[in-house]
Structure formats: structure tokens, C-alpha cells
């Protein structure tokens, strides 16, 4: 072998071997002329495993290996397009850091063990802890990366099998505020609109949503709309802001003021739908009284926008036939996230723009299956958007499952940040983390590290190892990842799409579904919670029954139907229940909107208008920490880079974290474009991160993407959470910036554009 390699390398050195085979081309029947090495034996239809846009795609499998991916031209969501992460997704399966064997930490070192031992160890340790400290001493944190079937299975295992109370998903770090907001305004979770609305709206209003970086395929849908006006509210001049007809560069955390101001103007200008308000909402008079004080002048002062900008935005929204509001983390990642969502819903409700074609307040979700976990899990609500506090819901579930009613929990367990706090307080001794990487993604990392240190037993079940969180685990369970397992994902617009297995998992890695089944068997609860289950389809069939008649009705869906149509929106009933919404029985390719009839999921069927104040963020810049830190993402990377960090091309395009700073601030600090700086907050620091001097960020603010473990923005962020959703306030923290090390090269001249220089001289 060595001789052969030596011979090969000599051959290559001399130029006799130019790798002609590897770089040959051929014709693929489905996708045309392309690199021969990338033409697979078969294309396996599936749905992208990164974000919640939910793009349909194919994995190319060749001799048991994933060699390529292509967008599905017939999928209703993306019509063949994929973002750069999706276009390179097969590399995430073959990444070198895949977890292959169960590992148990003994005397500080990981040792490979077999699955039987791993399952016995985990169940034994958790039961010991529960026996000693009570059932609530175990916490489970899972994720929207699991397929719905797995999350549903996990929910039953955790709550009914282990009897664990404290179960949550990392979705709480992501869109929990949208969930709480929808619940408070409409009585239930569930985004009312569809992506189709982006194409049919005459006004698209994005608040705190940088879709060009985070959901590029939504830009594709938006660009199909030739006649829309796009308004983007974002303190940064993001790539999305550059697409906008009107960019509102508002101050951080002043969106509630803007929304209240818009409502104020619309009421004054009589551009509200009085009939709709009267028939379908409660609380208008209080709202009207409350927004009295949000005069355009006051709002201009609070937001930093001009009176004209506020007025134009309100009037455009008020006059639009189909105004669409989309938001993401700029709204959710806030101590007032839920309330901001309520303010958005207020605006949509008073103008009657909910569930209409082209018009809805629409939460653009984060993870590929965040929606599926919201519907099927035991986290913020009982499966099928049932309420913990509603005895009839509990009774119904118990009946459907054939279990005793007492087994169904009567209240939600601790939310993610509260589980972590529970550990710190010594109430939680064992933690099971599934497919998420809090040691990059959780705010205030020092606090989290301290927490994980206090645990008696930490189980990390993940497709990747070593990653920051798996390194501190006691037990690592290797899981199959996207492309290696079957199930369904539900995207932001409630479209359920099929996820398929293209290749086998490496080593002894097993699908999360199989791991849950093994644990149930060890617990001896298989017959009770998973009667006759063998494959994810069994879980899906049961989930269909559980969701029947609920808002999130899956009962009419089958794997075959999903494969045929690429994706189908819920509610999609089996015809047995009419329900209030007629959208339950319709052709599968048709879009379904919620609340089109103005009937909401509240007790009286009316939506609630909330009185919302605009409060300051938990931490504001001061003398010691003079800059406001904003965090976010970049298009090349996904979350904590356990996947994309292993993909050479994506890493080349965006290899390290950076800090964006306005030239005026940089000049004051005598820092230059390309310098390395140190960023410090009251909670921690980043020692070395490269500076990007740019006018895309206002003076006084800095921006750092959170993906990078090596320069983790979450060393700096605050621990404060939204009181309703428990979602952390990632977007604002006070920091200071100083030079980290002298760079090798810098350009002394031409650092600032002439316009800035002129500005500075004023």
C-alpha cells in the first residue's frame, strides 16, 4: 500500500496523473451533465435538515456513500433551489467528527462500550438519581433537529416512561417567543400564513429578520413577487435590508414603539377594520387608549426613525390589500419577545390581516423541525397543541393512549434556561442532551459550564463527537443524522415533508428513534408506550390519531401522499372531522391558512389584543461597557458549526468569527479593518476576533455571529429571559472592545470612506 502510494505520488509529481477519472463528466438522467464522480446510483428524495424553510431535495447515494445533493424542482417550497448549506449537505453526513461508538467517561477518559452497556448504564444512573432526589432531578433537552416521529417518541419516553418532568427543546432558544405570542394572541401556537403569501402580498414587512443570510430560499419566493413593496426593520444594514424598498434603521429594541406608533396612526387615519375588530377581537378599547401616547413624534424619538418613516410605514401597511409581516430572531431573542409578537399580532388584527391570502403575521422559524416539535412534543404544550391545564385535553390524551389519566402531566416542566438554573441550584442532578450543543448556543457560557460541572450524570446523544458539549459528557450516545434516518419535518409554513434514509450510519451509530426504543425496553415500558412499534412510521400513525381534529391535524397525511406531493400543509384531515376550519379537507397541493374565518383557538373564539409597553433591554451600554452587542448568523454556517464547520468550502468562505464596528467607533478606538480585537462583557470575553470596520452597523453597536466556538459570542451575552417564553435575550448586551494583537498588515490610508470623513468633521 505504501509502495503504491509512493508510486502514485511520484506519478503525480511528474505530471503523469492529472486525476482524469476524478474530474470526468457524464450525463445524469435527472440533473443533466455534471461531474461523473457526483452522479449517484440513485437519488433519494428527502427534505433539508438545516433550517425551517424546509426545502425539498435529493441525496445522491453511490455505493452506500452520499456523493451529492440537488434541490427538488417539484417541491412546493423551493422549486429546486437550495442555499449554500443545503447545496453541500451531503458532506455533513461524511464529516470526520461523526460519533461512531457509545463512549463512557471513566477516570476522565472516554472508553468505548457496547450499546447494551450504554443503555443499562444510562437507565441505571437516571433511576438511581430519581430514586435519591425525586423524578424531577432529571432534565432532558432536545431539539428541532429530530424528525417529528422521534420527538413524539421522545416525549412519551421522557414523560410517560422515565417520568421526567423537566423536558424542553432548544427551540426555546429560538422561537419560543413566537409560540407564546401566538398563544396569547390567538389562543394557540401555529403560524397562520404560508410562503405563498410572500408571492401574493403587496406589502412585505420584515421585522428583525435577515432572511438573505438565514433563509435565502425565502428570498427566492419573495423575488417571484414582482409587485411587492418590501419594508425591513433592522438596526443593521443587513443583506436583507439591502433588498428593501424602505429600510427602517430603528434603534435596538424599539420595535414595540414602532408597532404601537403604527397602530396609533392607523387608528387616527381610520385605516382599521372596525368590523373585524368588533367580531373577532377583545381588548380594542384598552389598546386604543394605550397607543394614544405613541404619537409619531414620540415614536420617532424612541426609535430613532424620522416621523416620515414611521408615517410611511404605517400608511403603506394600512393601505395595503395584503400586507404580510414576517419576523425571526430580532423579535424572539428578547426579554420582550412574546410581547413584541403580541404587538405584531395587534397590528395584524386591527387591520383584519390574519389568515388572508398574502396577509398574516408570520413567524419564520429556525430549525428544520422546530414546528414538528412544537406540535408533537411535551414541551410548551401537550401533543397536538393540547393544554396541560385543560382536564378535557388530558382526559382525551389518556383515552387515546389507553393510559391512566393521572399519568398525563398537569403542568409544563421547567423550560430550558430554568433546567440549567435547576442544575445550578442542585435540584437537577442528571441531564440528557439530544442533538444540541449548548456549550456554544446557550447564553452566558461561564454560567452554563459551571452548571454542567455540578451534574452527577450527563448524557449527550449526538451525531457528532467531539463537539464542545459532548466533551464534557459522562456518556456519549452516537446517533444517526439527517440522511441516515426516516421521518417527517414540518417547516415554518406548516408544510409536512418526508425525510428519508439514503445511507447507513457510520460505526455503531443508531437512529434516535431506535435509541428511544432501546431505552423503553430497558425501562420495561415498551408495551405501554410503544405498542408494537418497530419503525418511525408506527410513531407517525399514532401521531396522526393524536392530532386528529386538532388545529395541527395530520390525520389525512400518509408517507405515500407526502412522497407524491413533496410536502403538504397541515391541517390536513382524514375527513372524519369537519372542524371549524374548512381548510382541513382540500386538495393536497392547495395552501391552508389558519383563522381565515376569524375564529381563533380561544375560549370565546376571539383573538386578544394586548396592551404592550416598550421596555429597555436588560443591559444597556454604560461608561465601562460602552457598546451594545448584537448577535446573529451568517449564510455559510448552521448554528454551532458541528456540521458546517466540517465542510471545507463553507469553512473557507467564512472561517472565523468577526466583529462589525462602525468606522466612527473604530476611529475613536484607533482600530483598523482587519485588526484583531478583544471583546469583553461583565460575564466573559472573546480574546481574539477579527474586526470588520463597516457602515452596515450604527455607531455604538457591534455585531458578532454566534456560530464559532473558538470566539463565542455567548461568552458575552446576558442570562435574562422572556418571562412568558423563557427565551434568552441574545440580541443586546453591553461590551467593550480593545486591541487584541497587532496585525501583520494594515492599510494606514483610505481606511474610511470620504463621506465618513466629512461626517466626522461636522
Amino acid at each position, binding site marked *: 500500500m505504501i509502495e503504491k502510494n509512493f508510486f502514485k505520488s511520484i506519478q503525480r509529481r511528474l505530471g503523469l496523473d492529472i486525476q482524469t477519472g476524478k474530474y470526468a463528466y457524464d450525463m445524469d438522467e435527472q440533473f443533466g451533465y455534471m*461531474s461523473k464522480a457526483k452522479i449517484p446510483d440513485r437519488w433519494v428524495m428527502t427534505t433539508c435538515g438545516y433550517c425551517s424553510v424546509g426545502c425539498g431535495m435529493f441525496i445522491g447515494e453511490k455505493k452506500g456513500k452520499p456523493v451529492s445533493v440537488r434541490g427538488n424542482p417539484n417541491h412546493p417550497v423551493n422549486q429546486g433551489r437550495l442555499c449554500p448549506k443545503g447545496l453541500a449537505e451531503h458532506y455533513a453526513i461524511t464529516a470526520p467528527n461523526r460519533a461512531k461508538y457509545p463512549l463512557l467517561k471513566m477516570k476522565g477518559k472516554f472508553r468505548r462500550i457496547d450499546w447494551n452497556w450504554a443503555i443499562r448504564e444510562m437507565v441505571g444512573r437516571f433511576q438511581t438519581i430519581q430514586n435519591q432526589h425525586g423524578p424531577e432531578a432529571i432534565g432532558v433537552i432536545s431539539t428541532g433537529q429530530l424528525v417529528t416521529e422521534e420527538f413524539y417518541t421522545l416525549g412519551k419516553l421522557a414523560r410517560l416512561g422515565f417520568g421526567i418532568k423537566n423536558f424542553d427543546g432548544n427551540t426555546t432558544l429560538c422561537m419560543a417567543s413566537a409560540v407564546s405570542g401566538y398563544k396569547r394572541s390567538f389562543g394557540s401556537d401555529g403560524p397562520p400564513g404560508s410562503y405563498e403569501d410572500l408571492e401574493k402580498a403587496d406589502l412585505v414587512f420584515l421585522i428583525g429578520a435577515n432572511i438573505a443570510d438565514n433563509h435565502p430560499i425565502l428570498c427566492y419566493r419573495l423575488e417571484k413577487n414582482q409587485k411587492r413593496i418590501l419594508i425591513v426593520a433592522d438596526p443593521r444594514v443587513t443583506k436583507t435590508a*439591502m433588498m428593501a424598498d424602505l429600510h427602517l*434603521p430603528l434603534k435596538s429594541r424599539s420595535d414595540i414603539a414602532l408597532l404601537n406608533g403604527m397602530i396609533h396612526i392607523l387608528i387616527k387615519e381610520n385605516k382599521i377594520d372596525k368590523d373585524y375588530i368588533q367580531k373577532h377581537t377583545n381588548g380594542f378599547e384598552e389598546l386604543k387608549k394605550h397607543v394614544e401616547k405613541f404619537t409619531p413624534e414620540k415614536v420617532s424619538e424612541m426609535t430613532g426613525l424620522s416621523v416620515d418613516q414611521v408615517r410611511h410605514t404605517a400608511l403603506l401597511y394600512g393601505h395595503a390589500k395584503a400586507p404580510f409581516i414576517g419576523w425571526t430572531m430580532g423579535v424572539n431573542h428578547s426579554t420582550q419577545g412574546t410581547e413584541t409578537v403580541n404587538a405584531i399580532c395587534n397590528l395584524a388584527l386591527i387591520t383584519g390581516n390574519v389568515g388572508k391570502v398574502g396577509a398574516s403575521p408570520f413567524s419564520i422559524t429556525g430549525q428544520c423541525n422546530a414546528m414538528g416539535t412544537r406540535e408533537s412534543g411535551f414541551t410548551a404544550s401537550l401533543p397536538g397543541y393540547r393544554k396541560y391545564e385543560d382536564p378535557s385535553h388530558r382526559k382525551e390524551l389518556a383515552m387515546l393512549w389507553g393510559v391512566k389519566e393521572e399519568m398525563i402531566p398537569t403542568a409544563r416542566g421547567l423550560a430550558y434556561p430554568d433546567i440549567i438554573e435547576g442544575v445550578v441550584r442542585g435540584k437537577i442532578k442528571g441531564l440528557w442532551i439530544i442533538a444540541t450543543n449548548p456549550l456554544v448556543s446557550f447564553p452566558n457560557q461561564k454560567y452554563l459550564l459551571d452548571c454542567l460541572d455540578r451534574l452527577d450524570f450527563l448524557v449527550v446523544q449526538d451525531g457528532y463527537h467531539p463537539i464542545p458539549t459532548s466533551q464534557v459528557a459522562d456518556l456519549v450516545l452516537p446517533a444517526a443524522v439527517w440522511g441516515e434516518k426516516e421521518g417527517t419535518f414540518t417547516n415554518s409554513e406548516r408544510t409536512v415533508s418526508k425525510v428519508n434514509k439514503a445511507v447507513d450510519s457510520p460505526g455503531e451509530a443508531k437512529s434516535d428513534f431506535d435509541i428511544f426504543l432501546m431505552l423503553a425496553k430497558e425501562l420495561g415500558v415498551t408495551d405501554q408506550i410503544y405498542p408494537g412499534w418497530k419503525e418511525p412510521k408506527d410513531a407517525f400513525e399514532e401521531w396522526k390519531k393524536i392530532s386528529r381534529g386538532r388545529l395541527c391535524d395530520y390525520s389525512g397525511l400518509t408517507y405515500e401522499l407526502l412522497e407524491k406531493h413533496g410536502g403538504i400543509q397541515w391541517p390536513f384531515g382524514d375527513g372524519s372531522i369537519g372542524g371549524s376550519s374548512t381548510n382541513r379537507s382540500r386538495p393536497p397541493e392547495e395552501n391552508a391558512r389558519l383563522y381565515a374565518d376569524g375564529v381563533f383557538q380561544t375560549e370565546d373564539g376571539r383573538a386578544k389584543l394586548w396592551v404592550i409597553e416598550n421596555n429597555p433591554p436588560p443591559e444597556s451600554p454604560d461608561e465601562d461597557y460602552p457598546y451594545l452587542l448584537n448577535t446573529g448568523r451568517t449564510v455559510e454556517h448552521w448554528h454551532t458549526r458541528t456540521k458546517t464547520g466540517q465542510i471545507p468550502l463553507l469553512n473557507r468562505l467564512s472561517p472565523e468569527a468577526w466583529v462589525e464596528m462602525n468606522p466612527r467607533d473604530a476611529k475613536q478606538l484607533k482600530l483598523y479593518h482587519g485588526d484583531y480585537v478583544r471583546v469583553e462583557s461583565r460575564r466573559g470575553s472573546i480574546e481574539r476576533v477579527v474586526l470588520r470596520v463597516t457602515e452596515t452597523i450604527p455607531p455604538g453597536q457591534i455585531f458578532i455571529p454566534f456560530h464559532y466556538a473558538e470566539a463565542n459570542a455567548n461568552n458575552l451575552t446576558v442570562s435574562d429571559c422572556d418571562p412568558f417564553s423563557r427565551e434568552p435575550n441574545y440580541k443586546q448586551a453591553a461590551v467593550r472592545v480593545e486591541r487584541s494583537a497587532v496585525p501583520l498588515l494594515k492599510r494606514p490610508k483610505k481606511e474610511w470612506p470620504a463621506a465618513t470623513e466629512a461626517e466626522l468633521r461636522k
Partner: protein
Amino acid sequence: MSDKEFSLIDLADSFHLPLKNRVNKEGYYKPGSSEHTTCGVLTASPDAKEGLIPAELLKEGEQYRFHFDMSRCVGCQCCVVACNEQNNNPSSVTWRRVGEIEGGVYPNTKRFHLSMACNHCLDPSCLTGCPTDAYEKDEKTGVVKHKAEECIGCQYCTWNCPYGVPQFNPERNIVTKCDMCYVRIGDGMAPACVAACPETAIQIEKVSVAEWRENHAEANAPHMPESKITVSTTRITLPEDMPEEMLRLNRHQIQPEHPHISLIFMTVLTQLAAGGFLILWLGDVLSRVFHFLKPLQEFLVFGACGILAVTGLALSASIFHLGRPLHAYKALRMWRRSWLSREVLFFTLFSLLGAAYAALLLSSNTFRFPVPEAIRLLFGGLVALSGMAGIHASAKIYMVPARPAWNTPRTPLRFFLTGFILGPLFSFTVYSFYEMTKASGNVAPAVLGPVLSWLAISSSAGFVQLLVLFARLFYLSEEKNPELYDSAILLTRRFKNHFLIRIGLLILGSFILPLSYLFYFVAHSTTTSGQMMFFAMTSFMISLFGEILGRYLFFVTVVAKNMPGSFFTQSGGRH
């Protein structure tokens, strides 16, 4: 106003909102829609229907080209990844790249992206420079194709292209580049990058070659190399609201270029050989006229052999520069067009004729086969001429518009001066060896005639070289051209110490050592062959090292023209 007539756009217009890219009230400019006709054969293609590729076949005098709409691109990098997936390229080779520029003051900031692959130029400089005819401008489509089998990996095209398009693939040891997925276009399918773009910012269009040659202003964009160099065909639609001054996001990335060690040795040694041979031949001629050069006569054969040895060394060094050394012979192919071919040709001639000249000398001196002196002198003249032509061809290789720091008359001047600094000193060194072999003890005073002539030539050349260096510094510091400015930064900051040492070595080797030798000789009036040897060796080695260091700086401090990169990517690959 009745409800039916009401348009939100009218309302927005009354607010004077600068609606983005709207061409009229009807809506956004729809790419490619005008090209929809029914007579084309490709109308059945969905990609043609979407306006991604032309629906009609090319007419006579037309070629395909990219259209890039800067106002639509959001910098999502889909095209880059899709291209690498289409072509199975490693991450270090990206045929399509996305750059970023920004301008204005917050909140009226404008940021734009530039997604660029090959521009399939009308005058492709990659093609004209290629020594092996590995490039072809396709007659039918206008696509600039690269033939992998013909490529020898000399990477000369990567120096010639002002856009950094051809990239060396270390896995294959050859250069590769974008071919516009022309096979896909022929099949009625959009190229990978075009098909992947979620914003329809990239399309394939047809262009009339003659009209475009007349006016190609639309190929220009801020921070893009001017289109006139190669007549780039990519049409760029610029946003209407672009501020006048735009900054490159990668303005902090000033990376040294590859030093090309084998080329450093190859160029310095061939120049030494060519310069040395000219001096030698002049000695051969002039010694017939000037008495003080007489001692040269018997030395000629040694000098010639020494120079031949150096030439051999230089040419073998050059082969290691190639990605495919065994295919080096192909480099001769395009001597009608490529300066690289010509360089190879001239130096091959130089070494062959040089060997013949040495053989003639040997046969007259040693073997007593007298050859008419006139023939020998003529031969020598030819050798010297091919050597000079070789240096000229070498310099021409570097004088490419894509590399402004090289594209100056100083380059040939520096190359010739290297020859005239090192050539005489090399002869001096060989000569001192020759003296050592004769007998120890004092050197005959007559010998000093040629030696002092050599030293005089070398010192003068050294003096001019010093002037050239300072001139470079002077011009660079005054520079408005961004590449030259960056080049100056590299030379005076990153490589400041190298540069100071280089100047020090030049002064030491060209002035201090020769002068001290002169003083020593004047003071003592005699000198031993050992002393002469010492002086010859030291001044030669120091000057040689000085010139090698100078050549190293020549290579590493050049900054190539390129399209703007993103914050993290240097504009192109390293060449």
C-alpha cells in the same frame, strides 16, 4: 380613486421612496423576458423559459456570456457551492467567487456583492500567454475552454488573467477554469451557478461580438479590473443607487504572493549565464584589439564551460516549476505567440549554441583541430544574442497588465542588470580558479587587465541596479493604482528587513568589495592567486545572494489585479 385603481406603488411613489430596481410602475425588471420567442429550439427548456439561458440559438457573430445583476445579488454564495459540486472541485479551487463592496454612511449604507466566474473575454490573455495551446476560444459559443491534457501546469495563465480566473489545482498539478457549463447550455440547461441562484442574479445571454468590442463599458464595476485589458464579456448591471466611493471588504487582505523558488533560481542563473556569455564573447572579440585583455584568450574555454554548467542548472530548476515536468517539452509549442515559449526557445538555443561554441574552443585549444576564428566568433555572437533574447523574453513574461508591479520597463532593465552584475563576477571567479590551477604564488600583473574590466562592468551595473531600486520605491510610494500601492506596503512593511538586506548586499557586492580589492592591489601592487580567489568568491557570492533576494522580493511583493473578494477571501487563489 376607486378601490380597483388604487396601487400601493402609487402611494409609495407619493412618499418618494427610492423603490429598489423598479423600472416602471408595472413592476420589477424581469430578467431575460424579452428573449422569449417561439422560433428557438430551446423554448421547450424550462431554464430558457425562466430566462436563465437564451431561448434562441446563437447567430453568426454572437457568443454566449454571463450577465450579472449586482442589484439582485444578496451574496448567498449558492453559486460558489453549486459550481464546486458541478465540477467536483476541492474547496481550494473556486471557479466562481463572490466579492463584497460597500459605501455610504449609516444608515444610508449600500453593500453589494459581485459574483464572478470566467468572463470568457474577447481577447483572453490566458490563451495568448499559454505556451502549450491548452486554451481555446470556442468558435461556436465563444467559451474560453481549457484542455487539461495539454496543460503543463506552468501557471502562466494565472499571471495573465486580470480577474484571477484560472486556478491551479494542486491535486491535478494543472490549471483549471470555468467553461460556462457549455455542455449544459447545449442541452438546454442552465449552468450550475445560474440554476442555483435564488435571486436570478446570474444569467446566460447572447452578445454580438463586434458590437461588444466597440463598447464594453457594461463589463466594468467598482474595483473590477478595467474591461479593456481583455475585453471581458460579462455584462454587469449596476444598482442605480450606488455611492460614488465603494470600499472592498477585503481591503485588509494584502497577502504576499508565492515566491516560486525554482523560478528565482531559474531567472537569476539564466541571466547570469547570458550576461556572463556576452562579456566572455566581447572579451574574445576585444582581446584581439586591446592588449590588456590578451590573457583572456586561454581562459575562454573554462569560462564557457562554467557558464554552460550554470545554464544547465538553471534550466533544470525551471522544470521543477511546472506542475507536469515530464511534459516540459510542450512549452516550445506556441513560440509564435507566447513569450514563455520564446523564453524556453531562446535559452534552449543558448545552451545548444553555447555548447557548440565551447566545443569549437576546445577543439582549437586542446585537440589542435583549428577552426577558423571567424566562425567561432560568429558562433559566439549567436550565443550571446540568444542569451540576450532569452533575458528579454523572460522579462516580457512578467510584463503583463494583470500585474502592475511587474508591468514596467524596470523589469527588463533589472533582469539585464542582474546578468551584468553577476556575469562578470562569475567569470572572475572561474578565472581565479583557473589561476589557482596554474601555479600558486603571485598572479601575473597582466592578468589584472581582464579582472579590472569585469569589476568595472559589474560595479557599473550594480550602480544602475541601485538607482532602479530607488526609482521603484519612489514610484510606488506615489502610487494611486491600488495594486501598486499594496505592493509598496508589502515591500516597505511586511518585507522591510528583506529589502534593507537586499540593498546592503548590493552595495557590499558591487562597491565595497571591488573597491577594497582595488585599494588592496594599489597598496600592495601584487596579489596571490589565493587572495584573488577569496575576493572573487566573496564578491560573487554576496552579489548572487543579493540578486536572489531581490528576485524573491520581486515575486512575493507583486499584487495581482483581481475582482474584489469577500471579507475572508483574498481576491483570487495564490499563484
